[in-house]
């Protein structure tokens, strides 16, 4: 080996040359910046599907992914076209978006804000994704929404039910099709009053994060308005899998209704624990003890099995709906995957189509143009009846379903029945409602 002499002068020289070499290219390229982040220049456009593939909400995430793949198929003119045929806006022609073929990349949020942001960032920075869609937790949705705002891409939220997503954490680049805690409360309270009377004492178990907090607040407010009393609210960690220690005190609290503000695996476990403790066979205060699960999903109901029988909850959408949009979506989803879609799948499918349609109508992928096309957009035919994307907070307003666990399910997907379709007018609220106050949309950010 030769002798290497490292001198101060030598190091300075090499450093200067290397520095100049690295800096040189920036002189030529700095000015060639695009008009907005990830402007698609070739014949394709890339969408980013960021869903939980591991963790407590993995089931939901995988179903979202199925729906998103289906949406891409329909946008590219493959398959039977699904909701493109029933959608009230006819801008989409099945030739991709603005003539560009739609591609997609996927990532795993792990139901953790950090991991979700890392995977969204890699989609934006590495794969050139122009829009991020999906997710199954409000904490993650809020984190990713903030990221998309900074990066200058559109975020089409998936399943996120916290009031904060379009309340105090709302962002100009973020849009939510799914309903929220306030809407659940407004839809459930009258049904609960009819079913269980107005003289009830409720005990809340709440998942300890933004969604749990705001849903609990909403349900407590709505039920108190019909005469119920809230006995206690206990926060449980999201990562908990055994809830027996939380259920035992319910029996001694004098409450006669248990409200489970849980979702996904949490809800399956807590409901199962509650049934094992025999809560629903008890008589308290001379009344039958009841359990309420404000936010339902088919996947949870399937996981909880016979435990959901007779339990009331609310949903954004259900595959049993008989309007044209729902039928078209359920048909294509069923043909491709051999099972009915969940409501998280439906919201991600609708969001993907809504985004594509907004691009077509705006004639650009520029996030500011797309946002403008979505704001105040009235549409129908995607399965939820006539819907409005409100400009003030980027929240969709539509009918809400009140569901009940079926007593005699005929198969594993037939676990819930629709009790009532609560009309849109009943779940509407002012943009500055106290539960949603404190946020600011800010200005749309096209990035770059």
């Amino acid at each position, binding site marked *: 080996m030769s002798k290497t002499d490292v001198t101060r002068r030598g190091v300075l020289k090499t450093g200067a040359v290397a520095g100049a070499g690295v800096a040189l*290219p*920036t002189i030529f390229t700095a000015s060639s910046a695009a008009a907005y982040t990830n402007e698609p220049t070739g014949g394709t456009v890339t969408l980013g599907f960021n869903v939980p593939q*591991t963790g407590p909400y993995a089931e939901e995430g995988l179903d979202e992914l199925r729906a998103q793949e289906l949406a891409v198929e329909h946008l590219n003119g493959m398959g039977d076209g699904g909701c493109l045929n029933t959608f009230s806006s006819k801008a989409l022609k099945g030739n991709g978006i603005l003539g560009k073929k739609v591609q997609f990349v996927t990532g795993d949020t792990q139901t*953790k804000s950090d991991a979700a942001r890392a995977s969204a960032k890699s989609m934006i*920075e*590495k794969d050139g994704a122009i829009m991020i869609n999906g997710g199954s937790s409000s904490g993650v949705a809020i984190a990713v929404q903030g990221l998309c705002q*900074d990066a200058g891409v559109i975020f089409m939220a998936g399943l996120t039910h916290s009031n904060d997503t379009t309340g105090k954490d709302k962002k100009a680049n973020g849009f939510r099709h799914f309903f929220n805690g306030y809407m659940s409360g407004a839809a459930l309270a009258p049904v609960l009053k009819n079913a269980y009377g107005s003289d009830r004492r409720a005990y809340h178990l709440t998942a300890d994060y933004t969604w749990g907090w705001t849903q609990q607040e909403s349900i407590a407010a709505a039920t108190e308005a019909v005469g119920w009393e809230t006995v206690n609210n206990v926060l449980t960690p999201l990562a908990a899998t055994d809830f027996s220690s939380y259920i035992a005190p319910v029996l001694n609290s004098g409450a006669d209704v248990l409200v489970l503000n849980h979702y996904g695996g949490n809800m399956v476990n807590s409901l199962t624990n509650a049934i094992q403790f025999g809560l629903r066979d008890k008589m308290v205060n001379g009344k039958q003890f009841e359990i309420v699960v404000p936010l339902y999903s088919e996947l949870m109901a399937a996981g909880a099995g016979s435990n959901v029988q007779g339990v009331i909850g609310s949903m954004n959408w259900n595959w049993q709906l008989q309007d044209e949009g729902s039928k078209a979506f359920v048909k294509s989803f069923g043909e491709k995957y051999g099972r009915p879609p969940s409501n998280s799948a439906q919201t991600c499918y609708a969001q993907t189509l809504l985004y594509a349609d907004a691009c077509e109508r705006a004639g650009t992928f520029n996030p500011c143009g797309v946002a403008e096309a979505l704001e105040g957009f009235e549409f129908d035919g995607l399965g939820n009846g006539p819907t409005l994307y409100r400009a003030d907070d980027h929240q969709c307003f539509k009918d809400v379903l009140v569901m009940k666990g079926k007593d005699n399910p005929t198969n594993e997907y037939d676990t819930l029945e629709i009790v009532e379709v609560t009309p849109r007018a009943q779940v509407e609220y002012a943009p500055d409602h106290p539960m949603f106050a404190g946020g600011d949309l800010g200005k749309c950010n096209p990035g770059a």
Partner: protein
Amino acid sequence: MLGLNKKDVTLLTFVAVLALFAPFILNPFPEGSAMAQFNAGYPDLMQRFAIFGIFAIGFNLLFGLTGYLSFGHAAFLGIGSYAVVWMYKLLDYNVLWGLPLAVVISGIFALGIGYVSLRRSGIYFSILTLAFAQMMFAISYSDLLGRFVGTTITNGETGLQVYTSDPQILLGANEPNTPHLFGLVMNNSFFLEVGAWQFTFNVGYYFSAIVMLVMFYLSVRIFRSPFGLMLRAIKSNNTRMSYTGLNPRPYTLAVFVISGMYAGLAGGLMAAMDPLAGAERMQWTASGEVVLMTILGGTGTLIGPVLGAGFIKYFENIFSKINDNVLHQWFSFMPDGLEDAMVFIVHPFIGKGWHLTLGILFMLVVIFLPGGLVEGGQRLAAWIRSKRGGAEENTKSSTEPAE
């Protein structure tokens, strides 16, 4: 030069070259080719390489030199992040205020936790640090501290973010509203197109890389100092050291604090790249990850932890993003039945199965290369040398294990 011997200068130069040219080295495949999936030269991942490199270097100072295995280092990572985001919220987006504070605060916490935990050694020390970290995770995950004082401290599971309603008293009129260093915005990137390749030069990455180099240099100095020798003495025979009349505890406490400060700095940099601090950063899985990084790279070696950090982050970010569609593209040249069979075989190891792939590789490394990736490099170098002539067979390779 710089108070280092020749071998260490070579090593430092090697790391510096790797860091400076990372955008080229990590992007070996042209855009749009099937292999582009394996490119890692995008800002977010490069930043992570540098940041987790710092985290692992700091952890290695404690674990590699003294042998004390801390299972709670992620707590300091989280503290660093919270400190920086709070500075964004109170002052402005300049990262200069937050980073020193992150180092100081995590140092203070390390002093407290280390003072208690270091009364025990071995497994008891590990359990104590783990307990502290989990406690702090629980506190920040539910924002118990915030609830106690009636305001937001960590913002629970959602994570601490900056809102337009925050005071930000130093915020100037034309100041960028993302993290920056005196106007140098961390998110900014310059692109260089060479043929089919696109290389990204990101401000945030180079900032982290420079910090990483400084921290690497510092760790080399600690390794080579009398203090470092003392720490190694603790590892090889603690009892004997006590018999000779030396009290090892001040040394272990000092290195515990230093390593906590490294972790705090890494956490601060994470928030400097992405203005959000989440509680998951403090979870035990994150503490375990840095242990894996260090062992995978080579415990007690200088460069090992950096390699290990890069290795794990690469798997987490690249393998988890390969889905069945990508697989079908790769194997599309095969006949249909075979293609599906291949996809079926590979499927468990990609996408959500990246943990499995990493686990298998970790097992292989630990079984066949107990000294980590560094040992692999040394064996390779020795093999090449013996092929070349065998004259210099007995000379030790240039990259230096601690023992």
